[in-house]
């Protein structure tokens, strides 16, 4: 017996896939856009019916062969079939033979899709509309062989047949507008993507694109105008553009390269300035050739150019300003905002967390590019020593090693790893003596991963506690600070390198999290390189904070709001090992990371202003070690703070500059007992700024206790609330 839930699941899967098949054509997964596009295909009933059959066949094929439901849902397999279906439906009269052809054609589309999908994905490329082109051309050529098929002479079941005035009026209205000739071409080109060569379709699609994505809309105009101007400037044959309104290639290419596959920015717009004329060149070059075979060009120029440009971008040695989209959000806006947000938040973050190799506050006596010895190959090294409040490194007259504050202090592993190289037995020098023969002195090199090593040098003779080949844990004491090798006074030399050899050149690598001490205050730094003279210290986590923000997969969190409503959240981990909180009520999802020093949210999907969204904002970045006075700053997406209209307005200029920002601030307020706390409070705020001026702000207060509860409240807002999260054990 088939369960109702199963039927519901498949119905939903196919329906969503159906909608997305249309919106994917315009690089989106917007439901509203899909609805408008379907509306446009309904201008020709036959075409819409054919499209439906094609998509359904495609989806059933995918299901029968057990393909990934995610791709079915996203319409990835079926958007080419949708275009094939609509094209055939417009081309031929509807009869049984056509139905058979449709089914066969969409099965073929599916297989071709799978082939191109995987072949190109391996090269990091999309398959665009290649399957559609191949299948449609095949049918156009082969269709002549099938006498059972009849060409559609005059469309009967079309909207234009019933309401011709609607179309006429639209056309007449556009004719009254300035640049009417360009507008006609633009709208018809937009419609042409769905084989609707009329203005009404174009207008509806344009509205759909605008509502769905401001950047796409901007790009569609930008791309089209560029192409148009190129034709005009070159005094090219405009009949190319009018014939099947091939100008849509400009539009598709502009959206694809301007914001969909490449993060929208002034650079992506600049890229289009050069790429769009290439499209024009290809149209001019291939138009005649294809006409000879009676084949329309369709989206061939777009496919060629987009693939070529993306392929070329993949081969770059370095990426500076033109960024490919790594995780596709099906929206140029989301791609843009999330890219720049994560660049700002995480670009300095490294895969391996390297901490300071010492305990307590040490001074960077020579930083990167120091003017004593940190030069050339060794420019990314750090030297550490210990100073008193007067910045002196020794007590007494400093004539003996033991007068130096750092001498004999423990040196710890900056990260877990294996001891790969070990030198011991070199005498510590007298003060001001250097041993140039054994430059590095007693040294330990740790291997943290392939091509990532750390080296600790000038260690005290006989103080090395570890053995060659031993695996040691982060923070483990490995030796004591000394003054062996080229070391006129005791200090620790620390560098990251790519090879296990003593004397290997240094690698620029940040320290994960540390505090800088200035007078009596501490400054928090993450993934940064300490500067010369900085007095730095590792962060010591507070067990209570770690426990409060330790969300275990499978754990349920009961959220009790001040109206005594309860909401259930649950902790999950996806296949990429990313942990997230899932709200059972709103289906919202908030991704988070807890690395033992910092808890932070990375992303949020779902409705705004839900409890989970508030928590995502309130605890956007939390320091897990209590330090009074330490402040953390971070950024959120502007969509986290501003309402929809402001956001949409901002989208138009977003590729070029951001006049809206949302900023996060964190600081501790109180602790009931510094050493065995049972309650810690901190305050956070999220501010939405217009230029420099704050126009929206939320202030949160968060209280954690030793009973596994997190209480958080919004305090400065008309909708202020107090909510308690209770974690199951």
């Amino acid at each position, binding site marked *: 017996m088939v369960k109702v839930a199963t039927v519901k699941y498949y119905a939903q899967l196919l329906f969503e896939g159906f909608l997305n098949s249309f919106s994917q054509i315009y690089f989106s997964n917007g439901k509203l856009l899909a609805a408008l596009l379907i509306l446009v295909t309904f201008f020709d009933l036959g075409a819409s019916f054919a499209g439906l059959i094609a998509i359904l066949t495609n989806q059933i094929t995918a299901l029968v062969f057990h393909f990934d439901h995610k791709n079915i849902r996203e319409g990835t397999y079926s958007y080419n079939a949708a275009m094939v279906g609509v094209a055939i439906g417009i081309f031929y009269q509807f009869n049984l033979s056509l139905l058979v052809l449709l089914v066969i054609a969409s099965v073929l589309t599916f297989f071709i899709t799978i082939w191109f999908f995987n072949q190109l994905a391996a090269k990091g490329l999309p398959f665009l509309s290649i399957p559609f082109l191949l299948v449609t051309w095949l049918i156009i050529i082969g269709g002549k062989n099938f006498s059972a098929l009849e060409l559609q002479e005059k469309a009967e079941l079309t909207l234009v047949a019933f309401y011709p005035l609607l179309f006429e009026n639209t056309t007449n209205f556009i004719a009254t507008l300035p640049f009417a000739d360009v507008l006609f071409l633009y709208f018809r080109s937009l419609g042409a993507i769905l084989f609707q060569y009329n203005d009404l379709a174009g207008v509806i699609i344009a509205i759909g694109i605008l509502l769905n994505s401001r950047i796409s809309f901007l790009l569609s105009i930008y791309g089209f105008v560029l192409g148009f101007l190129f034709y005009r400037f070159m005094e090219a044959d405009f009949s190319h553009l009018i014939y099947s309104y091939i100008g849509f290639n400009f539009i598709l290419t502009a959206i694809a390269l301007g914001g969909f596959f490449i993060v929208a920015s002034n650079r992506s717009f600049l890229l289009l300035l050069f790429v769009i004329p290439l499209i024009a060149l290809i149209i001019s070059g291939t138009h005649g050739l294809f006409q000879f075979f009676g084949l329309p060009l369709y989206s061939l120029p777009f496919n060629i150019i987009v693939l070529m440009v993306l392929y070329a971008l993949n081969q770059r040695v370095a990426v500076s300003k033109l960024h490919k989209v790594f995780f596709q959000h099906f929206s140029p806006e989301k791609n843009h905002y999330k890219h720049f947000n994560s660049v700002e938040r995480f670009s300095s973050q490294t895969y391996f967390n390297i901490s300071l190799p*010492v*305990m*307590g*506050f*040490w001074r960077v006596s020579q930083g990167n590019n120091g003017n004593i010895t940190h030069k050339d190959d060794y420019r990314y090294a750090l030297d550490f020593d*210990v100073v*008193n*409040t007067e910045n002196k490194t020794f*007590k007494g007259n400093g004539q003996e090693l*033991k007068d130096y*504050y*750092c001498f*004999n*202090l*423990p040196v710890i592993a900056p990260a877990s790893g294996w001891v790969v190289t070990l030198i011991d037995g070199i005498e510590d020098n007298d003060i001001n003596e250097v041993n140039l023969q054994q430059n590095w002195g007693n040294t330990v090199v740790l291997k943290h991963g392939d091509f990532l090593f750390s080296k600790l040098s000038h260690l005290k003779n006989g103080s090395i506690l570890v053995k060659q080949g031993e695996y040691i*844990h982060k*923070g483990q*004491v490995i030796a004591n600070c000394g003054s062996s090798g080229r070391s006129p006074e005791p200090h620790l030399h620390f560098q990251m390198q790519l090879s296990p050899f003593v004397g290997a050149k240094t690698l620029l690598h940040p320290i994960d999290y540390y505090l800088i001490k200035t007078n009596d205050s501490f400054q928090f730094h993450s993934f940064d390189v300490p500067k010369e003279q900085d007095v730095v210290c*590792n962060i*010591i*986590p507070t*067990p209570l904070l*770690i426990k409060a923000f330790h969300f275990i997969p499978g754990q349920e969190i009961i959220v009790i709001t001040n109206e005594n409503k309860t909401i259930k959240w649950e902790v999950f981990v996806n296949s990429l090992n990313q942990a997230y909180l899932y709200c059972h009520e709103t289906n919202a999802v908030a991704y988070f990371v807890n690395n*033992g020093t910092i808890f932070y949210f990375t992303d949020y999907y779902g409705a705004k202003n839900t409890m989970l969204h508030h928590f995502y904002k309130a605890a956007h970045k939390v320091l897990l070690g209590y330090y009074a006075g330490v402040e953390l700053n971070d950024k959120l997406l502007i969509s986290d703070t501003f309402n929809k209209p402001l956001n949409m307005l901002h989208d138009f200029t977003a590729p070029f500059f951001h006049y809206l920002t949302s900023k996060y601030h964190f600081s501790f307020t109180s602790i*009931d*007992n510094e*050493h*065995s706390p049972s309650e810690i409070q901190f305050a956070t705020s999220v501010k939405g700024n217009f230029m420099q001026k704050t126009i929206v702000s939320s202030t949160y207060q968060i209280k954690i206790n030793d009973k596994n509860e997190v209480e958080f409240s919004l305090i400065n807002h008309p909708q202020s609330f107090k909510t308690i999260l209770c974690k199951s054990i």
Partner: protein
Amino acid sequence: MKTKKTYERPLIKSLNSGLMNKFGKRTEWTPLTEIDGVKVVDLLNEYGSPLFVYSEKKIRENYQHAKRVFETRYPKVQFAWSYKTCYLNAVCDVYHQEGSWAEVVSRFEYEKALKNGVPGDKIIFNGPDKTDDDLMLAIKNNSPIHIDHLDELYRLHELASGLTKKPKVAIRVNMDTGIYPMWDRFGFNYENGQAWDAINKIITLNKLDLVGLHTHIGTFMLTPSAYAVAASKMADLAINIKKKYKKSISYIDMGGGFASKNTLKGSYYMGSDTVPDIEEYAEAITSTLINAGFDKDEMPYLYLETGRALVDDAGFLMGTVIANKRLSDGRRATILDFGVNVMFTSFWYDHKISPVEELGYHTEDTTLYGPMCMNIDVVRENISMPPLSPGNHVVAHFVGAYNVTQSMQFISLRPAIVMIDLHGKPHLIKTKETLEGIQRDELVPQHLKTFKL
């Protein structure tokens, strides 16, 4: 210009050939003319003689140094200023400004700390003498109470049974660390299982919150390795508490006992040569704790109640020569205006004493006596000093610890105390005792008030 040379009385000294005699090594003729830039003579002129002087600079330096020494070896360290070592408010406040908590051993000290503005949860309440009232005050203020004996433990359980909040407690543990004498009169013994008995009682009765473990293995400890033994036994307790009861101990308090650079009586070498540096104590304690096997995220705090080693060399006692005389055996003797009544520690140490004025470098063996009319009032039995004349001044070093708190109003009044701040400005932190002040609390029955002589 011709300056008049200082007159120095002639002295006859026997010449010893061969090895230097025991006085010869400790010739104290280098004068100490100023402290932190302030002339000793000026201080004496302004505040009278004798006079205690504390150097704020030295106190801060000592504290910062000790803190650095421990914090660069162990991630979580907290010092608590041992009030009994020196509870002058000004001195305590310097430590509190530097971040030190308070460690007290009586209600009087407890209230002193509270009045100084130390939050209750940052006052460690030690000692064998705590009344119910004292305990209730400490519980109310959330102070960690270090339990000394089972009777105190029972009292606390009774007091805690009526409360909603569990009092924070630690037990004091005594143990054999290989040194003599073994301090077993305080706390619960480790070796014979008393400590475990107390721990089991506290945790199973579940009325008190066992947050820490405390030990204090002795005083003026010259063997740092004893601290390694103590730390390892404390860590063993903490780790086994975690194992047995799944309870993490928040701190291990290693007490005090670090020696200062003073010279113990009867010691052949000078303290500055034989006393271990604070680094050595730190090394012994921290390397033991780090390697004890604590869970990385649950390393206990290391509490230290260091007193003497932080303050001894920040205190000076200066005074004036009253007279010279010759004893029956021909030895020289000099009488000073301060004695054991204000410098109690001269029973323990051979204090370094420097002249203030530039005197010659010829020295003679002498005995320094205090001003009291008591035979015991000996400041230094034997010292080799340049010939001192009445009116000359001297300064006793390393008197910062225990002298102010143990000084007596005996025969004479206690002197004023001055602290020199970081900018070299002296501040009077305690005025010289007055007759009125001493008699303020005295009551005379009416029938004794009149008499005829």
